[in-house]
């Protein structure tokens, strides 16, 4: 990404925030109060920062997963299901004989990768061999995964004595994601995400694999002439995406909830689709915007306490941000503003 793109995105960001401010004003809410509450809610204490991180991790992972599938021209609506399957895979290990062993989280990670990747693979195979559109199969597989999770929670994995949808038994502490010393900071997850970001950046910009993925997304038919098959790269992209979404599921069960709940994905999969759309597959931007979204989600709880505003305001802010961003992208106002700036500066 060149410097000019960054500037344009920055101006677009400011404009989108301004639009949201006006929207809040029209509701009779002071936007500065909201900003303040959100900031305190997400970064006000060390504990809150950790909670923000624990939301940022799955959103980031799901977004990167989608960057792969969008690169190959695929709409991975099945991302939610892939997160849930990852969570189920991790839970399976946490509840097994390994559950009280220190090695459990690492095995969970591998299982989550496998389960999520497999769920993505099904979608890809249906697309490539069966000609099923990935949106339909993805949506279907989301429901199936969600159904499996509910079945396990009220069936085989129910808590002793009661069967409720509130989730499974809390995991043994050895199965929780390791933290540093006395702090609760999930350094292990943090490292994984940073690694995934760096690796993805390198893979997509510096390798033939990344270029071929991108080429597949642009012209499915032309790839044959360059001695590779689009179909194979679609399958690769879905397996990678599924595996990354699986890690997001692992982060949810072993990092946030410490148990499997029916809503384990937290809707982060669908949120990430919006996020990647506004970031147009740009990794730097994804890094920043996913962080903001995480802060917004965690900080939202403060709105109720501090300002007596409903938590649903967070949804409104999120949605209007995405919408204004997309409209601004279309209108291309930033370029004009940038031109005016540069004219003024040169004078």
């Amino acid at each position: 990404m060149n410097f000019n793109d960054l500037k344009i995105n920055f101006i677009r960001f400011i404009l989108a925030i301004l639009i949201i401010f006006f929207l809040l004003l029209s509701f009779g809410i002071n936007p500065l109060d909201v900003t303040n509450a959100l900031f305190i809610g997400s970064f006000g204490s060390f504990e809150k920062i950790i909670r923000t991180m624990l939301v940022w991790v799955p959103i980031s992972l799901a977004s990167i997963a989608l960057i792969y599938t969008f690169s190959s021209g695929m709409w991975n609506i099945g991302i939610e299901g892939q997160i849930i399957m990852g969570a189920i895979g991790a839970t399976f290990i946490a509840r097994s004989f390994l559950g009280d062993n220190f090695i459990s989280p690492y095995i969970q990670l591998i299982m989550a990768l496998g389960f999520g990747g497999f769920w993505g693979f099904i979608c890809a195979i249906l697309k490539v061999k069966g000609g099923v559109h990935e949106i339909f199969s993805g949506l279907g597989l989301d429901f199936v995964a969600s159904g499996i999770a509910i079945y396990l929670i009220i069936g085989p994995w129910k808590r002793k004595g009661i069967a409720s949808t509130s989730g499974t038994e809390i995991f043994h502490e050895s199965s929780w994601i390791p933290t540093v010393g006395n702090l609760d900071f999930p350094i292990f997850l943090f490292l994984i995400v940073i690694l995934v970001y760096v690796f993805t950046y390198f893979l997509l910009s510096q390798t033939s694999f990344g270029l071929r993925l991108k080429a597949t997304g642009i012209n499915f038919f032309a790839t044959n002439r360059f001695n590779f098959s689009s179909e194979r790269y679609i399958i690769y992209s879905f397996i990678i995406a599924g595996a990354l979404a699986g890690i997001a599921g692992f982060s949810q069960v072993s990092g946030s909830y410490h148990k499997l709940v029916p809503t384990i994905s937290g809707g982060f999969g669908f949120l990430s689709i919006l996020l990647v759309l506004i970031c147009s597959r740009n990794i730097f931007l994804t890094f920043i915007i996913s962080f903001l979204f995480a802060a917004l989600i965690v900080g939202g709880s403060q709105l109720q306490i501090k300002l007596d505003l409903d938590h649903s305001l967070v949804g409104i802010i999120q949605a209007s941000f995405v919408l204004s961003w997309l409209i601004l992208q279309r209108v291309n106002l930033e370029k004009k503003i940038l031109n005016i700036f540069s004219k003024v500066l040169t004078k």
Partner: protein
Amino acid sequence: MKIELKNISKSFGSLEANKEISISIPGGIHALLGENGAGKSTLVKIISGQLNPDKGSILISDKKINLGSPKIAINNGIGMLNQNPLDFANLSVLESFLVGNTQNSFISNHRKTKEKILNLFDNYDIKIDLNEKISSFSIGQRQQIELLRLLYNGVKIIILDEPTSAFSLEQKKMIFDTLNKLTKEDITIIFVSHKLDEVFEICDSGTILKEGKVVYSMNKPFDSDAIFAKMFDDTRTKNKITNIEKRSDKFKLFFDELDMTKHKTFSNESLLDFGTIVGIAGLQGSMNDRLVKNFFSRDFSKSGIFFDNGDYIEKNKLYYMPADRLERGLFEDLTLKEHFALTYSHINKYINWNDIAIYGEKKIQEYDIKANITQKVDQLSGGNQQRLMLSLLPESPGVLLLEQPTRGLDYNSANKMWDIILHRKKNDIAIIFSSTDLDEIWDYSDIIISVSGNTIMNIDSKQNLNKENIARYVSGIID
């Protein structure tokens, strides 16, 4: 219905597409003939009101009509049947009639209209269920339905723009039957085509256009020799193939009955020297492009390109260039640089963008591509895109499979293209290309395969042929 065109002229910039064209059609089926770029489609567009001529007038039944508006043309009873059916595939036949109906008021009397339509279909002996969806019919049937729909809307003059290019023989018969019946109702048909056999079969009169001018007017019975001479003249020869020393290695082409019909067999023993240029001549819509493509994708059961020992030539030695550049050839959202990187993506795991840039700049120079290496390919002109495609083919010797390598290019770009292609002749195993331009086929091929529809009419080396023969073969005529 009599239609007269008087002194129609139309130019686009410096290009004169129509020059003082005057045609008088008393009725019946009139053929409009000519090669690609002769000015047929411009003239048709003027008649159907899509273009306004610079000069000239059109008279229908000796009455001058206004030009330049499709609506006026329709009101004057001029209708057009396009190459591909322009209908509503998702509607039923009845619905499609109602949608296009200009006569009825907002609330239409369905029963009465239905009766009227049924009568019409009966008159033309076409038996179809009006409630069936259009998409369930064959293309031939759809064109028939379109014809009747035009008729239902009161059309008196019908222009058919190469209507049979996608038809099977039966479908063609169906349409021709309908056309013959139409002429009996005093409906005039203008039949645009370059398939001479069809013209001989059904037309009553005809006009040949060349470079925007009327060069020949004809009436039944047709003098086929004169027509050939007028359509394809031999003045433009530009054989630039310099004699290259004969190469001892051989390859062979094999065409199996399972994959196509053949009139003439190419004996399997006749091996071709490495470096032979094989031109596949055929009209638009014939299988000539498909032959080239299937050689690459190996969609044929047995036909293909082989070494003289009978082995298939390996897939990675087949270098294919499709006719539709952006649809199947290039990646419109990628830069030139990224394209060059893709050509080496099977060798390099990591991309060294600096090396790629140096390599790319060299290729851009060598192939005379007028573009910057960081530009996206959809910003390039057709000629530059075509040369880029050529520059992306591996340098190591292989079989070049070129689908209409100069399609849509102007004279100079086409020449440049061939300079580059001929340059590869001395190293490559073979160069196989398809074209609808007989001059191009004649100028550059060593072996010429003539194709009409799905049939191979003739395969022979150039010495044993002449241009007129090829013109006959691709028109589906065997002497």
